[in-house]
């Protein structure tokens, strides 16, 4: 009885230690390898990217995709693999895209990652992809982009050169307003997607793929059901599912093992806590 009642008040230091172990061990030794199912919202995102115009599209159909980076170091573990999976898909299909950072720290995080993938896949800056400069004000930037993209975003991150310099940045050729975006990918830990829907998605008819962190996922289903977004990568698991759809095994697939073990730990702790709770109740009522 003593042990069972102890389950009602397990020392939290033990829980912290257990969590650290179940997160770290599968990350270092990927012993848990389950198949990752592709859910409908991820499949929709994948199919939407498959339909995007490539850089070789005829002049009248040429558009660029935009990856809005709203994440910082705090949610990098969840958001960066989502961005990475989509970037790999864009590069693989030859879809031209730009990264548009709204988080100061995220600017460097996203840029370094995309630059690394671009080098791996032999993609050229300015032609296959571009990094826009950091934008401090969100709503006004979206509103202004609806009428003039190069003027609103100003300069690129790498050379600090104006985006109107199409000799240096052929990717920007013919890109005037947000209507010239083929897709917007919103990688975010915050509730920022409604602004994209209002200012760009609905008015300019640009498809939006939403990549929220796990806690923001429940809200995302409303937008998906209303066709305001075309697909969603829910948290780190969304990234792992996207990697499965791409047939690749990146960080997200490896981290899915850690997610599994940590979720199981939480469930076990909840069950143990309830056993302890009932035992304590019984002990109190009998005494």
């Amino acid at each position: 009885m003593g042990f069972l009642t102890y389950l009602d008040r397990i020392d939290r230091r033990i829980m912290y230690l257990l969590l650290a172990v179940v997160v770290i061990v599968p990350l270092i030794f990927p012993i848990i390898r389950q198949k990752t199912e592709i859910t409908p919202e991820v499949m929709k995102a994948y199919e939407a990217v498959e339909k995007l115009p490539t850089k070789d599209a005829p002049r009248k159909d040429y558009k660029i995709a935009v990856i809005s980076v709203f994440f910082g170091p705090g949610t990098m573990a969840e958001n960066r693999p989502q961005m990475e999976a989509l970037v790999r898909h864009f590069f693989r299909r030859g879809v031209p895209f730009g990264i548009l950072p709204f988080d100061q720290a995220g600017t460097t995080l996203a840029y370094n990652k995309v630059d690394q993938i671009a080098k791996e896949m032999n993609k050229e800056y300015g032609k296959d992809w571009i990094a826009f400069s950091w934008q401090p004000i969100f709503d006004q930037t979206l509103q202004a982009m609806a009428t003039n993209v190069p003027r609103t975003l100003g300069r690129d991150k790498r050379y600090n050169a104006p985006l109107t310099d199409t000799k240096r940045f052929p990717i920007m050729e013919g890109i005037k307003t947000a209507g010239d975006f083929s897709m917007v990918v919103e990688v975010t830990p915050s509730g920022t997607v409604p602004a994209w829907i209002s200012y760009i998605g609905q008015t300019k008819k640009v498809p939006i793929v939403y990549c929220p962190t796990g806690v923001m996922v429940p809200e995302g289903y409303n937008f998906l059901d209303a066709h305001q977004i075309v697909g969603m990568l829910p948290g780190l698991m969304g990234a792992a599912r996207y990697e499965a759809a791409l047939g690749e095994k990146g960080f997200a697939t490896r981290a899915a093992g850690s997610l599994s073990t940590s979720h199981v730990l939480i469930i076990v702790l909840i069950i143990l806590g309830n056993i302890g709770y009932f035992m304590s109740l019984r002990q109190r009522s009998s005494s």
Partner: protein
Amino acid sequence: MFFVPLRGYSLGLAIGACVVLGVLLLFLLTQVPHRYRKPIIIGVTFLFGWFYFLEFMIPGDRATAPVRGILRSAEHKLRLAQTDLEAITVIKGQLTVQYVEGGRTVKRLIPKDELKNLELDKGEVKVVHEDKDRPRLGEHDGVRRVMRAREIMAAAVADLRRAKSEIERLRPQVQRQLDQESKKAEAEAKRYKLTKEMLARDEQGNILNQRTKALRKRIDDLKDAAQKKIDPTIATIESARSELGNLSTADVESIRSVAAAKVEDVSLARSTLSDNFLTPYKETASNINAVIGSFAIGLGVFGLMSLHGKTIRRRRRGWINSLAFYVALFAMALVGFLQKYLQQKSGGQILSDALYSGILFNGAYISLQATMFSLVAFYIVSAAYRAFRVKSREAVLMMGAALLVMLGLVPIGQWMTSGITHVGWLGSFRLERVQDWIMTVPNMAAQRGMAFGIGVGGLAMALRIWLSLERGAYFDKQL
């Protein structure tokens, strides 16, 4: 006429003058008697609100009105055709697939969208037969509806052609207006002896002011509407019409979605031609908004400095943390400015990268932020353990749903029910499907209910603040 320098020292002077003017205005506001302050602030706020409201409500200029009218008519016709096509029953596509399982060949009929999952599940899957989506003619008066949709589409195409020729007629007119305005702007620049710094010019060297910018935008909008929206719509609708003519191969569902997409294109073309006399000032209004918003950053830094300054001066408990704030603030700012300077010196790039990117940014800032957030994971585990106690029926429901969602999300949960087939009603009991159902049905219903509630509450709150019914709102007392 109000000219603003665009570059050089004069721009710095202008910015300084604007800051002084802003501070002066704030000071004057503090001197205004209390009973007048509230109406002044409400008046200014209403003015901004009215600007956006009127810009949205006032119809576009008279010249483009005929084009908009024709486009509206085309849009209406396309919507009618879309409605007709929607009423026709479409058999959902199915695939007959074949794969090897346990050494024997299995043949199975599955929905189209299950193919990817089955491939992941079983490896190589061969599609033996595909049932295309077809109109089930005769049902819901299918043939008559298809024929009528074709006729309506033909009328819509005629409208679109008319709109295009009207645009072609308008473009030279607007170009002439732009030329006249450019000349007028040049004459004004000469008369007021404006320097290069005070004038913005486009690639052709024409002066860019509010009026010329608006006219240039109109020319671009007309060109885009004709070439990027109307031309592709005509081509697509013509091809959809011919597809519909051949009833045996027609794929009604895809034609309907094409028509729906093109309706949106026409609607977009119409809305881009709806600029009114207030639209050119929208960018200026947004800039004013942005500037006012940016003042908040300055105020925030000022507030933090004053708070921590007081803590250090009075040696309050934890003053060392306040000192850390000052050190971090100045170190980051100093190295940030130094970085710009060092980049121009030989070898300075390496030093600035090491100092700014290496130590302060990647080494301290990013690591600290990541650490702060990762601590949340530990608190979540502890909180879940303590909070999820089965104390009532509602708690049982909530815990059950939470456990199913948690398991359905991760591979280990999906593995637990991986023995259940993907196809058929049994497939609905797979944990990832159960999780998906919980998220898309009960969760979505609850989320929408909350969103409505929050929306109505937010509106009421906004009105209260706007009308200064909230205590202390809009400089009511504090200023």
